[in-house]
C-alpha cells in the first residue's frame, strides 16, 4: 500500500513543481518516484500476502507482478515524453501528474480485493485519461477522442456498477473472499441475480479492455488522442483492466464456468476477427495499431476463458510482450510523425536506409506483435494457446492461429515499407532518451523470447 500512497503523493508533488515553474525537474522527479515505488513493491514481494485495510486490497504475487509491469511501462512512456509535451503546451506538469494519477488507479485495479476498490481504481484511472485524451484543446481529433472516451467510459461504468450491485444483492458482500465463499458453498442454487451480475460485469469490463462487440470506441479514441497518451492507454490501462478482469473471474466465478465461458468464447472469436480483418484495410499506422490492440485483447481473453492456475502467468507474459512492442512502435511513430507530419504507412518508406537502428527496433517490435519465434510475443502467444488447449478448446486455438496468420500480413506491411520502398526524405534525429527506451524494450523482448524461464516462475 505504501507504494500506492507514494505514487499519489508524487503526483501532487509534480503538480506543485509545475506551479513553481521547475520544468526541468519534472521528469527526474517523476522517474525517481517511480523507482522508489518499484523498491517498495520489491520489499513487499517476500512479505505475507494478507488483505489490508479491512480486506480492501491484497498485495499477493499476482498484484505485485502486474503492478511492477505497469510502473515499468509508465517509466518507459515518461522517458519518451522528453520534448514531446513541450511542443504543444507550456503547462507540462499536468501531463506528468495526470499520467501518475492514472497509474495510481491502475495499481489499485490490479490489487483490489473488494469490488469497491475495483470501481474506485477504474474511475481514478479513467477520469485522468479522459483529460489526457483531450489535452490538446484546439485539436479537433483530440476533442473528439476525449468526448467519445468520456461517454463510453461513463456508460460502461454504469454497466459495471449495476453488475456489482447485483453481485452484492446475491452474495451480501463486496469482498472477493465472501463472494467466492458464497459461490463455492452453493454452486447449483446461486441466486439468479448473480448470473445477471456476471453478464453485466462482462459487458462493463469488455468496454474497458476494448473487446468486441464493445470495441467501437477504441480506434477513434486511440487515433485521436496524442500518440504518447495512446501509448499509455494501450499498454498500462489495458494491462490493468485485464489483470482486474482475470482476478475477479479467476478468484470468484470459476465454479460457474459453464455459464460464462460460452459468452467469453464468442466474444474472443468475434474480437479476433473484427480486430484483425479491419486492421488489414487501414492506411494509417496509428489506426492499424489501434485495431491490432483490439485483436490482442481477443488473445488475452483466452487466459480468462482458461481460468486456470497458469493463466496469470500467461497474461503477464503476453501483456508484457505486447506492451513493450507497443511502446517501441508508438515511439518510432512519434519520431516519424514529427519529421514527416503523417502517420500513414507511406511515411515509413525507406526508413531503413537513413535510420537503420530505428527500423531494426520497429521491425523487431512488429515481429513480436505478430508472434514470430525468438521474440517475447511468440512466448506470450504460445502460453496463451497452450493454456486454452489444456481445456480442449481446440476450435478456438485453430481460429486463433488463423488470426495470427492474418496478423503477420499487416505487421509486415510496415517492415516492407521500411526496407524495400525507395527513400524520399532526410534522416530522423533520435535523441538519447528515445535510444534508451528502444534499446531497453528491444533487449527485454529478445531476452524473453530466447529465455522465458526467468519470468514464468514468478507468480
Amino acid at each position, binding site marked *: 500500500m505504501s507504494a500506492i500512497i507514494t505514487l499519489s503523493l508524487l503526483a501532487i508533488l509534480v503538480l506543485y513543481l509545475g506551479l513553481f515553474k521547475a520544468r526541468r525537474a519534472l521528469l527526474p522527479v517523476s522517474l525517481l518516484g517511480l523507482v522508489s515505488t518499484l523498491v517498495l513493491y520489491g520489499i513487499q514481494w517476500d512479505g505475507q500476502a494478507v488483505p489490508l485495510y479491512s480486506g480492501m486490497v491484497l498485495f499477493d504475487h499476482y498484484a505485485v507482478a502486474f503492478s511492477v509491469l505497469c510502473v515499468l511501462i509508465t517509466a518507459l512512456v515518461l522517458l519518451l515524453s522528453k520534448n514531446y509535451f513541450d511542443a504543444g503546451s507550456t503547462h507540462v506538469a499536468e501531463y506528468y501528474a495526470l499520467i501518475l494519477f492514472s497509474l495510481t488507479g491502475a495499481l489499485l485495479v490490479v490489487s483490489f480485493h473488494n469490488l469497491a476498490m475495483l470501481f474506485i481504481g477504474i474511475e481514478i484511472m479513467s477520469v485522468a485519461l479522459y483529460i489526457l485524451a483531450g489535452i490538446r484543446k484546439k485539436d479537433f481529433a483530440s476533442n473528439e477522442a476525449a*468526448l467519445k472516451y468520456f461517454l463510453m467510459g461513463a456508460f460502461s461504468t454504469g454497466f459495471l456498477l449495476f453488475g456489482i450491485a447485483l453481485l452484492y444483492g446475491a452474495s451480501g458482500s463486496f469482498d472477493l473472499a465472501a463472494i467466492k465463499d458464497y459461490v463455492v458453498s452453493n454452486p447449483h442454487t446461486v441466486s439468479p441475480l448473480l448470473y445477471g451480475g456476471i453478464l453485466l460485469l462482462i459487458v462493463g469490463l469488455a468496454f474497458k479492455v476494448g473487446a468486441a462487440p464493445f470495441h467501437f470506441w477504441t480506434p477513434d479514441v486511440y487515433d485521436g488522442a496524442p500518440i504518447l497518451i495512446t501509448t499509455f492507454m494501450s499498454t498500462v490501462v489495458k494491462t490493468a483492466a485485464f489483470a482486474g478482469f482475470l482476478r475477479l473471474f479467476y478468484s470468484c466465478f470459476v465454479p460457474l464456468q459453464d455459464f460464462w465461458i460460452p459468452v467469453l468464447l464468442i466474444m474472443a472469436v468475434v474480437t479476433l476477427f473484427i480486430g484483425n480483418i479491419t486492421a488489414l484495410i487501414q492506411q494509417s499506422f496509428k489506426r492499424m495499431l489501434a485495431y491490432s490492440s483490439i485483436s490482442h485483447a481477443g488473445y488475452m481473453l483466452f487466459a480468462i476463458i482458461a481460468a486456470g492456475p497458469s493463466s496469470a502467468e500467461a497474461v503477464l507474459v503476453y501483456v508484457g510482450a505486447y506492451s513493450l512492442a507497443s511502446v517501441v512502435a508508438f515511439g518510432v511513430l512519434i519520431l516519424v510523425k514529427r519529421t514527416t507530419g503523417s502517420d500513414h504507412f507511406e511515411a515509413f518508406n525507406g526508413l531503413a536506409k537513413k535510420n537503420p537502428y530505428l527500423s531494426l527496433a520497429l521491425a523487431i517490435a512488429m515481429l513480436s506483435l505478430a508472434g514470430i519465434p525468438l521474440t517475447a510475443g511468440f512466448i506470450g502467444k504460445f502460453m496463451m494457446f497452450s493454456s486454452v488447449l489444456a481445456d480442449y478448446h481446440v476450435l478456438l486455438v485453430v481460429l486463433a492461429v488463423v488470426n495470427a496468420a492474418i496478423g503477420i500480413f499487416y505487421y509486415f506491411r510496415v517492415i516492407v515499407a521500411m526496407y524495400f520502398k525507395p527513400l524520399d526524405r532526410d534522416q530522423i534525429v533520435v535523441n538519447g532518451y528515445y535510444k534508451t527506451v528502444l534499446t531497453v524494450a528491444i533487449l527485454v523482448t529478445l531476452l524473453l523470447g530466447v529465455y522465458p524461464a526467468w519470468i514464468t516462475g514468478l507468480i
Partner: protein
Amino acid sequence: METIVQEIQGVPLNHYILFCSLIFTIGVIGVLIRRNVIIIMMSIELMLNSVNLLLTAFSAHSGDASGQVFVFFIMALAAAEVAVGLAIIVMVYRNTRSVDINALNRLRG
C-alpha cells in the same frame, strides 16, 4: 433511522429490482438514441442513480451497511466524472459551436 429502514423493507425486494432495472434500461436507451451530449450525460446519471437505489434497497433488506457506503463512493466519483465531462463538453463546444454528437465524426476508417 430505524423507521426509514423499516419503510424500505416494507416494499418487497423484487419490486426494487424491477424498478431499478427499468430506470437503468431507460438510461441505457437514452444514451443510445439521443444525440445531444448533455442529455446523454443525464441518461448516464440515471443509470448510476438506479444503481444507487438498488444498492440502498439491498443494503436495507440484508441489514448490512456496506452497500450504503458504496453509494457514497458512487456519488463522489460520479460528481468527479461529471466535472471532467462538462469540461470536455465546453471544450468541444468552443471548437464546434455544437453539443450534437453527430458533429463529431471526423475520425473514420
